[in-house]
């Protein structure tokens, strides 16, 4: 693994403990612009923790995370401005239930990016149109299906014009028939060149869309590679074991 200074995100020796229990034990990763990194691994292996460290929702115990050349683990860095450039999509959607869909999308741009309301709404409508939900702009989140909620959550993050999108098992809370519509949106996003880090159990998606597959086990990256070598020629026994169970 070579260190390249042009990486969008560069993670070095990332460690994270909860109450003295080490969950991430020195993770190194490089995410270049346009990469779709897919993170897989068993439950409890530390995938979410890794992803959540990237935008400092979890504060790393040690290690550095360079985002666009800035070490965001530095206490003097204003993390809020960097988070604006890192969209995040959660398993549980986490839409704001007290706001309409449209307001969910315009809140960030108007309050943080200084966009006018009209401008933000115009952009929001374009985004909603892209995911086929323009006619639900005035609905409230609890009037939507899970798949619709997650598509809204994705465009809410996109409304901030992020440079990278982080996904934590975006389809795991969905009924099976709704998984497809969300994956479709993510595929389109990847094709459009968005840099993405995706924690998922959807191996089909990983194969098809991933540029870089990462296998996390027990708090470290055990194996990493292109979908082809990763799935067709896994090297470590632990990955082989894992793949034999999920494929």
């Amino acid at each position, binding site marked *: 693994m070579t260190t390249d200074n042009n990486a969008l995100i560069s993670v070095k020796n990332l460690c994270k403990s909860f109450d003295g229990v080490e969950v991430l034990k020195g993770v190194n990763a490089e995410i270049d612009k346009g990469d779709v990194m897919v993170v897989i691994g068993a439950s409890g292996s530390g995938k979410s923790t890794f992803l959540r460290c990237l935008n400092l929702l979890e504060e790393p115990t040690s290690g550095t995370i360079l985002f666009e050349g800035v070490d965001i683990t530095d206490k003097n860095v204003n993390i*809020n401005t960097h988070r604006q450039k890192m969209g995040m999509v959660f398993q*549980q959607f986490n839409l704001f239930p*007290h706001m309409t869909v449209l307001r969910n999308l315009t*809140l*960030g741009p108007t*309050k*943080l990016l200084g966009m006018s309301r009209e401008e933000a709404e115009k952009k929001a409508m374009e985004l909603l149109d892209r995911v086929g939900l323009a006619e639900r702009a005035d609905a*409230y*989140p609890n009037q939507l299906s899970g798949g619709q909620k997650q598509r809204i959550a994705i465009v809410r993050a996109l409304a901030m014009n992020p440079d990278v999108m982080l996904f934590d098992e975006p389809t795991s809370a969905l009924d099976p028939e709704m998984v497809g519509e969300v994956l479709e949106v993510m595929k389109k996003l990847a094709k459009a060149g968005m840099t993405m880090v995706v924690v998922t159990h959807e191996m089909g998606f990983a194969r098809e869309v991933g540029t870089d597959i990462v296998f996390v086990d027990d708090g470290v990256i055990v194996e990493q590679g292109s979908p082809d070598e990763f799935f067709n020629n896994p090297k470590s026994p632990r990955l082989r074991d894992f793949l034999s169970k999920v494929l």
Partner: protein
Amino acid sequence: MQGFIEGLVASFTKTFITDNRWLQLLNGLGVTIMITIVAAAIGLVLGFLIAMVRSTYEMRLSGRKCRNAGDVILKILNLICNIYITVIRGTPVVIQLMIMYFIIFASSRNGIIAAFLSFGLNSGAYVAEIFRSGIMSIDRGQFEASRSIGFNYSQTMIFIILPQAFKNILPALGNEFIVLVKETSVAGYVALQDLTYVGNLIRSRTYEAFFPLITVALIYLIIVLLLTFLQKKLERRLRNSDH
């Protein structure tokens, strides 16, 4: 029968008409309402501030080490708030009122200010717990989603957490004010002529218990019903305005 009715009329006259006693009752009602409103305002502001300290502490610092001066201040503030809530909730409001009046306001003996403050401080402790539980009841995912967009802690509170929390706690808040109205009935202990005091005064002057006490009870009941009505109306409006 004739005698009974004449007796009733006489009692009624003594209770309400003689010496303009209805006016005394009205003044008493005014005092009760004034104490309630000022104390509620103090309680809301104070309770909100305490709840912000306590929930900020819980979310950011609970079980962790202080890393800078801000953390230390937060920790100290949280400790003060905890002591305050423990003391207020652990002692009767009438004792708090008397301490305020006979000890803290010993020199001025300003009953109304003492009442404003002690009922306000008392209500603040309960309102703080209501606000805090409302804030803590909001799913953590809401907080994280907001932070992930780039909102800082206070923006997250203002735009995301508090609007949702407020709707959840409205019933509890309404109940707190209903309790407060009734609790002010001990204001007579510090020489204030509130509704209860006036009612009791009329009872002792006229040797008529029935009319003065039932009247006072009915007035409290009407206030409480009125507050309940407003509370329900506001809740309905909030529920209709969004989801």
